[in-house]
């Protein structure tokens, strides 16, 4: 199994398209950092709106590394599923397309083991991608913008809120958020592998994954009561932004933030459970299909 995994990782590392993901993330993060270094105040003015008449805020300090990382993740974690699909969607269908799948399966390797190796390689790729993202968006941002308390702008029901998290209470939230993002992206990887099992070329499962994610993300963000109640709770895209839950700090009766707290742990636990259930469902389905598949290419 370890040998199979090494081979799969070697294949991913050898493919040029793998590095598109790293380059794309670097480009997006750097352009964000440049834009905010040049004119971050405009964004702050937009978010603070009319309360600027009542309150004074040192915006230069508010636009710090922690704040930047949150903004970048907010944007990037919508696009990263596409980058994960680029690699995971190619895992089985790519072999089929090149005619190597039948060849691999003639060796003393079970289909289940091969699929596990593909899934784990995709998971490792996802984690390395997230580490790269963390390096650029968190470490480089703190180096450029410095460290201070973190501001979160949030719409909660009918209420808009501004949360401030103390600088020494932020880092563990990012560790948790990146771990959560890894689980969320593994749902995408398992979906891509499932679609890849059915396809004979690389493009199909990649495009199909992207289309499914985009469509379901739109459904997850539509505010229609019937959909809110009956559809959204079952969609994995509803929980893709669940990493933000770690930044919704708990408050006391007077509205003062409580250090080390999270507003709704139960909701985060529930989201993680649903995402894990999707991974099991998609990967289990892929295993089931792949084991019975008539390999002709």
């Amino acid at each position, binding site marked *: 199994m370890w040998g199979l995994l090494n081979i799969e990782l070697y294949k991913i590392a050898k493919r040029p398209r793998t590095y598109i993901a790293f380059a794309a993330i670097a480009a997006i993060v750097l352009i964000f950092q440049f834009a905010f270094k040049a004119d971050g105040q405009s964004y702050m003015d937009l*978010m603070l*709106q*009319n*309360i600027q*008449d*009542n*309150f*004074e*805020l*040192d915006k230069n*300090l*508010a636009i710090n590394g922690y704040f930047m990382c949150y903004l970048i993740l*907010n944007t990037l974690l*919508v696009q990263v599923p596409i980058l994960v699909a680029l690699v995971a969607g190619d895992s089985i269908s790519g072999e089929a397309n090149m005619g190597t799948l039948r060849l691999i399966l003639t060796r003393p390797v079970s289909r289940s083991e091969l699929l596990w190796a593909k899934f784990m390689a995709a998971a490792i790729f996802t984690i390395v991608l997230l580490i790269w993202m963390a390096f650029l968006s968190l470490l480089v941002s703190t180096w450029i913008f410095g460290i*201070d*308390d973190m501001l979160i*702008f*949030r*719409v*909660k*029901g*009918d*209420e*808009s*809120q*501004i*949360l*401030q998290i*103390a*600088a020494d209470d932020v880092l563990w939230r990012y560790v948790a958020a990146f771990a959560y993002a890894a689980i969320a992206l593994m749902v995408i990887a398992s979906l891509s592998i499932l679609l890849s099992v059915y396809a004979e070329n690389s493009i199909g499962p990649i495009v199909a994954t992207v289309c499914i994610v985009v469509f379901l993300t739109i459904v997850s*963000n539509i*505010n229609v009561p019937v959909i809110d109640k009956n559809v959204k709770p079952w969609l994995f895209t*509803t929980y893709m*932004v*669940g*990493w*933000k*839950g770690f930044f*919704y*700090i708990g*408050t006391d009766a*007077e*509205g*003062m*933030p409580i*250090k080390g707290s999270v*507003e*709704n742990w139960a*909701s*985060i636990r529930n989201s993680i459970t649903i995402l894990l259930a999707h991974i099991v469902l998609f990967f289990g389905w892929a295993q089931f299909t792949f084991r019975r598949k008539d390999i002709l290419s």
Partner: protein
Amino acid sequence: MKLKHIIFILIGLSFLSSRLQAQPAEQLIKQVRERLDQVVDYEAEGTMKTNVSFLKIPVSKITMYYKKPNKLRLKNASGFSFLPKGAVNINMNQLVQNENYTIIDAGKETLNGVATRVVKLFPLSDEDEIVLSTLYIDPTNLVILKSKTTTKENGSFELEMKYGKYIKMALPDKINFSFHTKDYKLPKGITFDFDDGKNGKVTKKNPSKGTAEISISSYKLNKGVSDLMFK
């Protein structure tokens, strides 16, 4: 003989008491101003707790700088925080420093067990930002315990002061500053939030009113404060 003495003392006391009560409001304000005039400048360290329905922010460490006649600046000791802009009005000198207003004696009122004199100040100048100030003055200690101020453009605000070891200089240990603020509303979808199932309709606080509780731990009095601190 003894009875005569007692009657004489009682008459004297009642006369003195009536004289004290009848102390004109102008005189009271003058005495309060004299008290405040002892302070040329100060640098105060303390904390500020802001209570506004849409702001979930921690207690911040602040430094307050004052310089005669009316310079006052509130700064974070470290990092950043949301500082109410009207907090500059916590400067009592600003309210009573000049004599360009009409003083009206508005009677007496008991405030937290302290009998206070209520004095209203109406600025004479049309240019003045303040429209009306109501001061609740402790006539024994000659300090302002509470003030209500209405301004032309920045709404109205209220101050309640508690005094401790700096009472002789008329400097409070605690200031409760109440102000009006606009409601904060972001367009839905702009922040791409995670719906954690908790609705945001639970806040009981008045969205248009905020308070800032300032607790001062120490004052550095009349040691000189650079003008750069107020820029």
